[in-house]
């Protein structure tokens, strides 16, 4: 299905170029880039850069927070879709479970008589969501491809409809006054309020960094390999001794837990949730973040999430056209970058690099990738 490209005319994919460049840096150079970059990311809400800002239409800090929470979701969904290749159209269900668990545990509107602090709710919410991932996954994961997609879509809708229909979950009346972390400033005012996005953004970015590291560990392991194998050819994977069902369940549960975490953070930030806003469209937008950024590429999906939130918010000022712009932007982006903003191969190549290195008997080091990259570059020059 692909067309030929003459050798000379080939453009090196942007992602690959970026990667090459990154690979060509020394370890300390990499840190030298990474630290200011992370610092810049943290500083964004304070800098509120003139061209980038979404104001006056929308509060930039809150937009950033929303982008961050969607990024967290995209990272979770990327495990399921990008890594294991399980098309999940109902991922919003996990987000909802996380948010609702938090709300039920902490909101005064809840049928529970005790209200727990937010920090206690978060791990519980993650756990409950992971379990819900197992509950949904166990019966459905033997379905293949798009049958799984529509079933997950169905489950996502069922979660929303249960929230809508079941009395204790309060439908559109919702749960108000979901608290955030109880941190106060010197003057006694709360740090985490719903109208100030900055602390929430910082919190979420920190969570993202931690999750990225953990998920990255997974991807660079037997587990990640098994996921990709399942994505590529489930039967062959099974024949090679991969317990496909178990690993698919793990993918579902891990993905769900991350989604639940995001839901929990979200509930704390807005302080009010009801059964609206957990619909199919939202779910598909999550997926759009993943695909737009580059399914399978963690950094890519973060970028994708940012766009999904940012584009409509940026055009708040012409509200009537913003979703039109958004829709067209998606189409255009996909045509020009069909592999997503960043391609997906980054992780897998590290193995090749390591092994290749060792094979030709030079790099003895396996634990540190950057050492190998550095070395590899040495060969290239």
């Amino acid at each position, binding site marked *: 299905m692909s067309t030929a490209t003459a*050798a000379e005319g080939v453009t*090196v994919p942007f992602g*690959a170029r970026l*990667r*090459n460049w990154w*690979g*060509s840096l020394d370890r300390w150079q990499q840190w030298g880039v990474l630290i200011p970059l992370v610092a810049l990311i943290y500083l964004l809400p304070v800098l509120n850069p003139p061209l980038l800002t979404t104001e006056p239409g929308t509060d930039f800090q809150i937009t950033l927070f929303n982008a961050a929470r969607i990024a967290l979701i995209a990272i979770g969904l990327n495990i399921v879709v990008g890594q294991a290749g399980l098309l999940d159209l109902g991922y919003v269900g996990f987000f909802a479970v996380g948010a609702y668990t938090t709300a039920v545990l902490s909101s005064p509107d809840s049928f529970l008589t005790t209200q727990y602090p937010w920090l206690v709710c978060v791990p519980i919410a993650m756990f409950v969501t992971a379990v819900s991932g197992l509950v949904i996954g166990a019966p459905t994961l033997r379905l293949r491809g798009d049958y799984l997609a529509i079933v997950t879509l169905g489950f996502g809708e069922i979660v929303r409809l249960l929230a809508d229909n079941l009395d204790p979950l309060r439908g559109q009346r919702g749960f108000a006054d979901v608290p955030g972390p109880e941190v106060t400033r010197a003057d006694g005012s709360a740090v985490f309020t719903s109208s100030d996005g900055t602390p929430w953004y910082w919190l979420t970015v920190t969570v993202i960094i931690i999750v990225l590291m*953990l998920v990255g*560990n*997974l991807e660079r*392991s*037997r*587990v*990640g*390999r*098994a996921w*990709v*194998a399942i*994505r*590529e*050819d489930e*039967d*062959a*994977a*099974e*024949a*090679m*001794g*991969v*317990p*496909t069902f178990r690993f698919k369940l*793990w993918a579902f549960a*891990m993905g769900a837990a991350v989604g639940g975490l995001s839901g929990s953070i979200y509930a704390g930030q807005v302080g009010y949730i009801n059964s609206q806003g957990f619909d199919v469209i939202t779910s598909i937008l999550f997926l759009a973040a993943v695909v737009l950024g580059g399914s399978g590429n963690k950094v890519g999906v973060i970028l994708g999430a940012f766009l999904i939130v940012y584009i409509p918010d940026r055009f708040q000022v012409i509200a009537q056209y913003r979703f039109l712009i958004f829709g067209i932007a998606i189409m255009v982006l996909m045509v020009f970058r069909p592999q997503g903003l960043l391609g997906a*191969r980054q992780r*897998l*190549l590290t*193995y*090749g*690099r*390591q*092994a*290749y*290195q*060792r*094979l*030709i*008997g030079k790099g003895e080091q*396996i*634990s540190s990738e950057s050492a190998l*990259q550095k070395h*590899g*570059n040495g*060969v*290239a020059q």
Partner: protein
Amino acid sequence: MNPQEPPTDEMRPQDPVTEQLGVVPPEGGLVAELERMSPEERAKHEAQVAAAAATDREITVGVGDTLLELRDLTMRFGGLVALDSVSFSIRRGEILGLIGPNGAGKTTCFNAMTGVYRPSSGDVLLEGQSLGKRKRFDITRAGIARTFQNIRLFGEMTALENVMVGTDARHRTSVPGAVLRLPRHYAEERAGTDKAMALLEFVGIADRAADKARNLPYGYQRRLEIARALATEPKLLCLDEPAAGFNPAEKDDLVALIRKIREDGYTVLVIEHDMRVVMGVTDRIVVLEFGRKIADGKPEAIREDPAVVAAYLGVPDGSA
């Protein structure tokens, strides 16, 4: 290893994959690189490779006792009987050929053995244990590995990673271990990479270790499948037409490779239509026709067996 040099890197002036890797292969390819090494380096490297390729599993019993047994295996698809109570057994350390006309049921036999199909009746026993109820991945772990007639690689993964998936069958790190990077993860990861690389070298395609499997030529893909299957450390290696798509010279290499595999202590079951390969490599041959076993014996005997000649060989093989 090959009178004719395998395609070298010269034909691939720019390989995007290796380029993305940040590792442009040494000029002249791996082979040249090996040649450039000093004798000591070379010896060290080869020792590494050999150590890594050697199977960890000790062979407890000597050659000769039954490893796998098919008992009255029957497989029906609707009205079609693809296997009709087929029984035979494979002894440890032997290379058994499974031949027969197209559609005789050879691949079906593999599929029934490896759990792809549930046999309609009959049983498969590995070391006396029934495989009937076991899951497919479990059968692999129990010690049967296979290749596929229609190549089934993980196309987007590199050749090396494909093999590593095989080595993972013997690894036990699961999600918690991987998330927390426990020591076992490191140990397994390292051992797996080494072993996989060694296997690629063993089957002769190490120079394309970092290429996507999808982009490899057909013959390389076949070899990669063998390496991947070997990586699971099987007691029994099942090859479904491994020589398909090879030219005679390459087939000779394959024969040598299969022999080497056996020398390393594996038992091999091979489906093959090429009589030179079959006669050159097998210790014993089972012949199927219309789902029934029609002969079972030494290659020389099979070659002469009138039933086999009529059903399968036709005019004495003229290709050699």
